[in-house]
């Protein structure tokens, strides 16, 4: 953190974040698609997912795809949490969140008056990002509960037992899909935020 005299502009998104973002994007798309195939074998609700949008042609293949990507998701997620805490990213970007700021920014967002400031997360973004981190932790814990209800019984107990754990897992998936939908819609509305997630971008000079 030397405050020396180099003038290299700081990126909006540092490279570890960009790398983890795209690894995560890939892993969760594969996991959601294969998870839908697994869901279809024993649906929790009165619907199944269309075969055209599931990954894996049958249950066995769906499970194989799902198990193939859980490690990538967990390793990447763990790296993200460690990096987020150690680099100060969470503290700088996601904190603090006050109910007042959230209400204010939601109001502004709904009136399309919430400007996008590069490198600064508004209160709505902070809530959504923290929420999806929570959903991510929940989906891993509930997923492990379903996969290993005997060996990892303490996680299964935490989720309210094997039966409930499937609903927890589904709900966390639904939250993540909802997040993805909002996330992608917002990127489509403000497309200039996309390139910095690939190249890193440049942070404007004056920062508090």
């Amino acid at each position: 953190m030397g405050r020396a005299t180099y003038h290299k502009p700081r990126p909006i998104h540092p490279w570890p974040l960009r790398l983890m973002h795209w690894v995560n994007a890939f892993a969760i798309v594969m996991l959601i698609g294969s998870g839908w195939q697994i869901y279809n074998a024993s649906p929790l609700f009165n619907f199944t997912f269309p075969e055209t949008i599931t990954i894996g042609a049958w249950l066995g293949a769906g499970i194989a795809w799902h198990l193939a990507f859980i490690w990538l998701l967990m390793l990447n997620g763990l790296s993200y949490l460690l990096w987020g805490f150690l680099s100060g990213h969470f503290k700088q970007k996601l904190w603090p969140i006050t109910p007042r700021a959230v209400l204010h920014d939601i109001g502004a967002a709904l009136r399309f008056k919430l400007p996008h400031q590069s490198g600064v997360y508004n209160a709505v973004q902070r809530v959504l990002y923290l929420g999806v981190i929570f959903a991510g932790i929940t989906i891993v814990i509930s997923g492990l509960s379903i996969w290993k209800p005997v060996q990892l019984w303490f996680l299964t107990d935490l989720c309210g037992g094997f039966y409930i754990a499937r609903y927890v897992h589904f709900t966390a998936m639904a939250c993540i899909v909802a997040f993805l939908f909002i996330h992608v819609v917002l990127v489509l509305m403000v497309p200039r935020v996309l390139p910095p997630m690939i190249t890193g971008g440049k942070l404007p000079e004056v920062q508090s």
Partner: protein
Amino acid sequence: MNKLDLGRRKLLSRALALGAITTLPGCDFEDLAHPDLVDRFLRTMLAFNDEMQALLFNPHTLAPTFPASMVTNPPRFNAYYDISMAPMVDPATYQLELGGQIQDKQPWTLAALRGLPQEGQITRFICVEGWRVIGQWSGVPLAYFLHRIGADTTCKYVSFKCADGYYSSIDMASALHPQTILALDFLNVPLTAPFGAPVRLRIPVKLGFKNPKSIMQLAVTNTYPGGYWEDQGYDWFSGS
């Protein structure tokens, strides 16, 4: 218009694969004789997952048990055929054949199996499809049986062949788990044909399809025996 729709659908599923080395859906584990790159990737990951599951397996961790009031009777039927097609095995002439690395390969009649120490359990049976039922099974602990017949328990696998042509296999550590039994009874009455009469494996530390029914042959081996579903792409270890 129709053509356009099809094209879009294809595009959508390809977008979902997001750079995966495949054109989804429908090419994974479709042609077992000719595995493609995707099949090999999935097989590699399944093998890795089996290693991880073996590492995670603690022989002293017991599957949870439940009160008798939670037992579902009759249990839920599941097989690759209809319940009416379940094999009928005559209990009077039944013999359990033994093979592989076993000292005493004398076949076992049902009466002889019933003469061995019996143990019961009320455990949860979890299907690979996601549903679960609780049942009460009793029979001969497999660890006891393996020692009794002089099985080489340093071998890697215990394999089973069933009256309906089904077959499966388990790792030795899971075979020796205290809750793994050769079940003869459900709710203290002999098993019925659809639910595995006369002898089935009950192994609560594994998924349902690793609990073969109507077992005719048991073997101990170091050669990977595979299984009916496992050979088609189900995860072999499938531990709970």
